[in-house]
């Protein structure tokens, strides 16, 4: 990973490809790379769909090595959904392959010409950018089929669906998984719309003839990786629960804890929760011959994912994640797993973030466009997005916009991005993250749920305001650093609880790069990333008044615990005191 690939799309004339040395970006990966490039090179006041925005695609520091769990890719830009800086993170094969190809980042600049759609093919011999208008308004699945036919069964494919081409604010970027299906998405923040604005439909990555990146100290690397793998295997969450039930194991516990936002955040308990739980999903997949345990990329040893099949055993989608099951399920009053799996498949195909799309549909239900519980109505709305009708485009624009259009007061967003599957009033640590994250409402940016609900990394009472700001700050710093490594964020469970596993991770990085980093250096990296992101947002016009939740969370109490969000504004403003 010693070079950067720049591709400048031009209004007229052919795209210009150049390969550069890393220069000042040396040693960066993942979110550190995307955020530093955006902070340095993108004018904060630019229009996210304009020529001055850049789309940065970066494998993590450890991607493409033999380190377990290292296949996450970061995609960054200025977000069309939030107007903030954005790093959206995905699994799938792309990170490993891109890293083996030697690129620490692909930076796509400029703007498409508005009529041609490009594909970019990268292999060991170079880069080929060509027009392929036959891909116009195809879904991700059809796009991937065509690329497979052209480039073979071994390539990793990054693509956008119709939503990205239409430049909708909830548009995602898909990455293919081990089966070459476009199921792993950089979902949040409308990164797909930025790719669409550049006129790029797909990027095909071929690492034929290349091997894993070599560590500076191979022996130390192997030993540290062994310790790291042991730590992941012995922790109850990553060794047992996630492989057996997937992330959707959370449905029951959030429901039990009264933190499961139901019917557009009216109560914290969903009657139909058990019917759409991870336990039920795993039971059903075992019965039908699906696969409840499956990795999203080679080198994943947790394998939280799975393959969802219908009652005849035919593939529908990957196993929908907890947040997807919530957004299309309890949030909308839908308790039918098969319908939720169809919605997941459609989101992946059209190229939509499942959270922003599901939350938008729930807000539309609140606004009377359809009834809560109407699964077929939800499916029809996604068909509208696919066709690009005005109504479909409104849904694909996310909760804030559809809420305005329908005159809905209860719109659960921060900085325009939908609040995910943990109610701010009964899981207050993650709510502080929603309010203050540089990304808009994003649970992954500082997963307070771990400590509030799951008792990982200690315990802070989810229903009280005390301790949440410190919790969120520490998690946001740690997360920014993990997002730079290319590690799947679920390694946070063992590394929060087991110091030796955290040390093993630091040792892997040191052995890879020949460094002597300590835990403090890792924290310093997290702070550096957050500071750069925050500085960008400030220049883009964001103030502390934007670091707030919608007021209904402070005013309306949430059953069953009848709590409100009561962390004060002054305390929220202390999150970045570091």
């Amino acid at each position, binding site marked *: 990973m010693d070079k950067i690939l720049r591709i400048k799309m031009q209004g007229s004339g052919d795209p210009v490809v150049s390969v550069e040395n890393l220069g000042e970006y040396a040693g960066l990966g993942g979110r550190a790379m995307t955020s530093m490039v955006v902070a340095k090179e993108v004018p904060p006041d630019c229009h996210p769909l304009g020529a001055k925005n850049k789309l940065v695609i970066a494998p993590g520091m450890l991607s493409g090595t033999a380190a377990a769990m290292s296949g996450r890719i970061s995609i960054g830009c200025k977000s069309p959904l939030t107007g903030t800086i954005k790093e959206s993170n995905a699994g799938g094969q792309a990170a490993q392959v891109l890293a083996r190809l030697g690129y620490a980042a692909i930076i796509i600049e400029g703007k498409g010409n508005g009529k041609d759609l490009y594909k970019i093919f990268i292999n060991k011999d170079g880069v080929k950018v060509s027009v392929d208008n036959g891909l116009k308004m195809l879904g991700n699945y059809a796009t991937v089929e065509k690329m497979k036919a052209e480039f073979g069964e071994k390539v990793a494919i990054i693509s956008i669906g119709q939503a990205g081409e239409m430049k909708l604010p909830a548009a995602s970027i898909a990455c293919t998984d081990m089966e070459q299906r476009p199921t792993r998405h950089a979902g949040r923040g409308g990164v797909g719309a930025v790719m669409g604005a550049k006129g790029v439909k797909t990027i095909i990555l071929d690492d034929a003839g290349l091997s894993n990146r070599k560590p500076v100290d191979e022996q130390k690397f192997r030993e540290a990786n062994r310790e790291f793998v042991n730590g992941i295997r012995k922790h109850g969450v990553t060794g047992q629960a996630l492989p057996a039930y997937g992330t959707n194991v959370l449905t029951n516990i959030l429901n*039990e804890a009264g933190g499961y936002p139901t019917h557009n955040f009216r109560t914290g308990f969903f009657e139909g929760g058990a019917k759409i739980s991870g*336990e039920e999903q795993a039971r059903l997949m075992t019965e039908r011959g699906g696969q409840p345990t499956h990795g999203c990329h080679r080198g994943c040893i947790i394998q939280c994912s799975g393959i969802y099949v219908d009652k005849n055993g035919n593939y529908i989608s990957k196993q929908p994640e907890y947040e997807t099951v919530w957004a299309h399920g309890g949030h909308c009053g839908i308790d039918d797993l098969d319908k939720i799996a169809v919605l997941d498949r459609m989101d992946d195909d059209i190229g939509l973030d499942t959270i922003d799309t599901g939350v938008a549909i729930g807000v539309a239900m609140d606004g009377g466009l359809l009834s809560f519980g109407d699964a077929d109505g939800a499916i029809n709305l996604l068909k509208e997005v696919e066709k690009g009708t005005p109504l479909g485009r409104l849904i694909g624009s996310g909760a804030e916009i559809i809420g305005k259009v329908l005159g809905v007061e209860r719109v659960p967003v921060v900085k325009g991005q939908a609040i995910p599957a943990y109610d701010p009033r009964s899981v207050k640590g993650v709510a502080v993250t929603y309010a203050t994250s540089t990304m808009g409402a994003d649970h992954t940016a500082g997963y307070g749920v771990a400590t509030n609900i799951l008792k990982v990394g200690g315990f802070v009472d989810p229903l009280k305001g005390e301790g949440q700001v410190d919790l969120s700050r520490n998690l946001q710093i740690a997360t920014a650093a993990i997002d730079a490594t290319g590690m799947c964020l679920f390694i946070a469970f063992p590394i929060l609880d087991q110091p030796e596993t955290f040390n093993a991770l630091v040792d892997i990085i040191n052995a890879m790069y020949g460094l002597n980093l300590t835990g403090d250096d890792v924290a310093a990296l997290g702070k550096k990333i957050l500071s750069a992101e925050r500085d960008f947002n400030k220049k883009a016009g964001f103030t502390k008044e934007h670091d707030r939740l919608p007021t209904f969370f402070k005013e309306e109490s949430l059953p069953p615990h009848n709590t409100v969000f009561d962390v004060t504004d002054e305390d929220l403003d202390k999150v970045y005191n570091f």
Partner: protein
Amino acid sequence: MRVKVKLFATLAKGRFGERGLELNASTTVLDVVNLVGVDSNDVALIFVNGRHSSFDYLLQEDDRLSLFPPIGGG
């Protein structure tokens, strides 16, 4: 007194998901864990009426006790 007991994820395997139990007064959570044949080492998370609780909590009439192994996601 009557208490509702709910077991989740691996704890429910070979046992039950939900059951009403008739218990003597001064029964603790740990007593119930033993009674239903769960190894207390396998219990990571205890909720009573939707709030975090502990093994030594004295159960009350109509309590809902929910037990989980270590779980996570996100």
